[in-house]
């Protein structure tokens, strides 16, 4: 109902606008003002109000501006053409707008559908695989213990523990992603030395990084970061665990912190195989996983969580291959005015 009222109001507005213009402009030109009105209504509302707007525009144009004015009579045939053209433009535009809207809605639905499908695929893979391993390892230990060597038992126990951690991580990634996308997360910004957040992230990734060498290179001149420490730590943990997962044991993982113009940059560099070329952007998509068939598990949400956290801070995150081999993930955070100095 409101859309029809808007259509009528637009026609009245166009008429009011045309009234003074009619002193200088030929009536055919005034028809263009009505076209604008019809376009506005078609862009905003459904086909019905747009057609109504077009029809009323033709009538108002005829009544107020086509001589003899204040009648619906048309003496000059050129205005029949103008009026007809106005009507046709109205119909075509409203049809096109409705079609475009339907198409974009369909695309949106298709994207949601695709996301839902990949969510289900991901869940079934990322929860079922470790759960199958957990159930299998536990039943071997229960039923076959007598036949298993101590080393084999230890191996099964390690597997049990690691896979259970994996399930837990997948579930918390899903929760975290849902939480970050709900728009209800408020950043708890505090001033942190980069060193403290980097150190806390390395400490938390210690188990995953046990087979790697870890090194930091932080510019001592780095200003304090004004960030939500828990979230930035989570971001760094995801990058470190990613490096641990995709690079061979024994290789070096380096966390770099440096100043850039207007930004503070934190990088995680590795010596692994690097990113599949062309995928530098796609890896931040939800449920993307490098080498689908590879025996790498994880929620496929880690990097999209990183991106969400970076964006919430007004920063950005990007991935690239290093010239000497390996991948580098770069987090850029805007520089903020410094906090009051510490007391003596």
């Amino acid at each position, binding site marked *: 109902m409101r859309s029809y009222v808007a259509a009528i109001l637009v026609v009245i507005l166009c008429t009011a606008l045309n009234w003074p213009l009619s002193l200088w402009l030929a009536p055919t030109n005034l028809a263009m003002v009505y076209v604008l009105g019809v376009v506005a209504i078609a862009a905003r509302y459904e086909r019905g109000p747009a057609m109504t707007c077009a029809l009323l525009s033709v009538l108002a144009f005829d009544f107020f501006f086509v001589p003899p004015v204040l009648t619906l009579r048309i003496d000059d045939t050129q205005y029949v053409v103008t009026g007809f053209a106005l009507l046709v433009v109205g119909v075509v535009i409203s049809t096109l707008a409705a079609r475009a809207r339907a198409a974009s809605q369909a695309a949106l639905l298709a994207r949601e559908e695709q996301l839902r499908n990949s969510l289900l695929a991901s869940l079934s893979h990322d929860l079922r695989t470790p759960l199958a391993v957990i159930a299998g390892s536990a039943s071997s230990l229960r039923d076959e213990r007598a036949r298993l060597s101590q080393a084999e038992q230890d191996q099964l126990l390690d597997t049990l523990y690691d896979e259970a951690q994996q399930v837990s991580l997948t579930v918390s990634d899903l929760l975290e992603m849902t939480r970050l996308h709900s728009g209800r997360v408020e950043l708890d910004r505090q001033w942190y030395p980069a060193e403290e957040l980097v150190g806390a992230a390395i400490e938390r990734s210690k188990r995953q990084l046990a087979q790697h060498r870890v090194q930091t290179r932080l510019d001592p001149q780095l200003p*304090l970061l004004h960030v939500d420490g828990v979230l930035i730590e989570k971001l760094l943990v995801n990058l470190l665990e990613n490096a641990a997962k995709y690079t061979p044991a024994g290789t070096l993982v380096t966390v770099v912190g440096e100043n850039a113009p207007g930004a503070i940059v934190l990088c995680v560099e590795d010596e692994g195989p690097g990113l599949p070329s062309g995928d530098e952007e796609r890896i931040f998509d939800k449920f993307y996983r490098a080498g689908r068939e590879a025996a790498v598990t994880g929620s496929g949400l880690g990097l999209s969580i990183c991106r969400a956290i970076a964006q919430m801070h007004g920063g950005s995150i990007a991935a690239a291959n290093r010239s000497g081999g390996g991948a580098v993930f770069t987090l850029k955070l805007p520089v903020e005015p410094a906090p009051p100095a510490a007391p003596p």
Partner: protein
Amino acid sequence: MTSSAPLVLIVEDEPKIRRLLRLTLESNGMRCEEAATAREALSRAQTQRPDLIIADLGLPDGDGLDVIRQTRRSSAVPILVLSARSQEAEKVAALDAGADDYVTKPFATGELLARLRAALRRALPRPATSEPAAFTVRELRVDLVQRRVTLHGAETHLTPIEYRLLTTLIAKAGQVVTHAELLRAAWGPAKLDQQHYLRIYMAGLRRKLEADPAQPVYLLTETGVGYRLIDE
């Protein structure tokens, strides 16, 4: 099992987690009591006089925080909270309410036992006259009488505030100490909202005590909660 074995009250509404905790604790020479609700927890805490309480915060008949607060009114028993990751505000609330430390679920047994031991050790009755004279962990030694800090045998000079922060952490070694506690200890109650003072001084302390301040070994960060000095 001897009666000198510490008695742990497990407050947890999930029977499977209770069973797991009981199994773990009993195989490590402790005795266990269980409570599934807040009401049960409070009455057991009164009647059984446990040496330590492990409490889950989500209970069917009430808030775990209330259990902590009410227990604290009449008892100094160490309380260890079980909490989920990324619930830092909840952890801080529990610590403020009087809990001594927390363990993040899902927990590894080793970590749980380390926290338990640290809490029990701190609660041991100590003769009032004999304050501990020194604190030693790995290569770090702090002489609490002479106020001397040595690392690998070499003396390290700390500023008065750094020393106060370090001794506050030593008093609860192995346990988390919240930002608020450290701020209060170093600057008094006026600066409680100035966490970055604390972070800057902790960074200074790390530069003096850690081989690589970006990969600390002694002074661990519990982001969003506080700091923990290792004790073993």
